[in-house]
């Protein structure tokens, strides 16, 4: 059997927001993937723009590397503004 390739679908909901992954679908080519994505993922005005990407073209981080990959963020709480106390007298900062 000849299976159509898998495409990942990204939709931008409003001007100013980023495209967001909404799901995937099979289609023979990019044009059909856009058409199918329109029919499946934007039937209730969910989007103003569609991206489709061949699923086999996506490179993902490995779940096994999660700990070392994201560890550097854990020890650097000073990157968050809430790390720094602001005196009550200083109202807005």
């Amino acid at each position, binding site marked *: *059997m*000849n*299976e*159509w390739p*898998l495409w990942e679908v990204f939709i931008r909901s409003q001007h100013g927001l980023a495209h967001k992954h*909404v*799901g*995937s*679908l*099979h289609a*023979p*080519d990019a044009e*059909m993937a856009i058409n199918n994505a329109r*029919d*499946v993922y934007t*039937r*209730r005005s969910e989007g103003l723009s569609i991206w489709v990407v061949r699923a086999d073209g996506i490179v*993902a981080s*490995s*779940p096994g590397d999660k700990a070392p990959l994201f560890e550097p963020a854990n020890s650097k709480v000073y990157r968050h503004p809430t790390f720094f106390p602001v005196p009550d007298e200083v109202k807005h900062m």
Partner: protein
Amino acid sequence: MYAQMIDTGMKRVQGLDEMSAEERTFQERIDAGIKIEAKDWMPDGYRRTLVRQISQHAHSEIVGQLPEGNWVTRAPTLKRKAILLAKIQDEAGHGLYLYSAAETLGVTRDQVYGDLLSGKVKYSSIFNYPTTSWADIGTIGWLVDGAAIMNQIPLCRCSYGPYARAMVRVCKEESFHQRQGYDIVMALACGTIEQRRMAQDALNRWWWPALMMFGPPDGDSVHSAQSAQWKIKLLSNDELRQKFVDQTVPQAEYLGLTVPDPELKWNEDTGHYDFGAIDWQEFRDVVAGNGPCNRDRLRTRVQAWDDGAWFRDGLLAHAQKRAQAQAAAARAA
């Protein structure tokens, strides 16, 4: 439900102390409410059970289009027809979200779909009943989609990320299905004597099959216990069924329709409705392939797949030809 009596392949549920290190880490993540994602390690049983459950759920969405499709050309008004078409189109979309979720577990779309066509994997028992009047279309939306929502809302919190996300999308759309169904039944219930009779007749025929959708009581089922431990089943069949009865009976009363159960009675002590015994033999017969429409449903799907082969192949051939032409043009440039 849309997935009924899912076999986990397990003989008994293991305690944390009997598990391998990997299994224990996995179970602890689930217990902590952390979602499992496609590329994470998972026990084979979890993967196989999810493929069964999600594909059965997907097949139900697809086969569920057939009883409704029966009335597209006979809808009473253009507005009802447009709404029914939109609902049926949603069901195709729900099937697609679910097939995509199943594919993240390492099976292909064609494998999963092939298992429906060969009869290896079932779809919900409810879709083996015929739609003999327009009132059935309203009653399906009201009861069948209502029952589906009851089951699908907790599944939005299930442990497998892609399945949970698919359920969130499905639930957003499902509410429209239930309301349009109730709207149809309401129009009939407020109509002529013949229309009221149609609405009552549909409720009489669909009530018990709708209660069967939730599946037999879990009792001592190892599979139910295992699925609960894996958090891919969040409420028991009986809990969901009770919620459905409690929610639906007042809706029927509002319409002045009678639920076809002489034993149905509000129980002040429990705060729930008591209801009569379900004919589980009928359920087993339908699941075994002997419902009123089993053969017809499967034959229709097989024919659609076979008749569409030239089209699927044609689109693929066209895409390949264009890709080759573009590559040749790029080389020449």
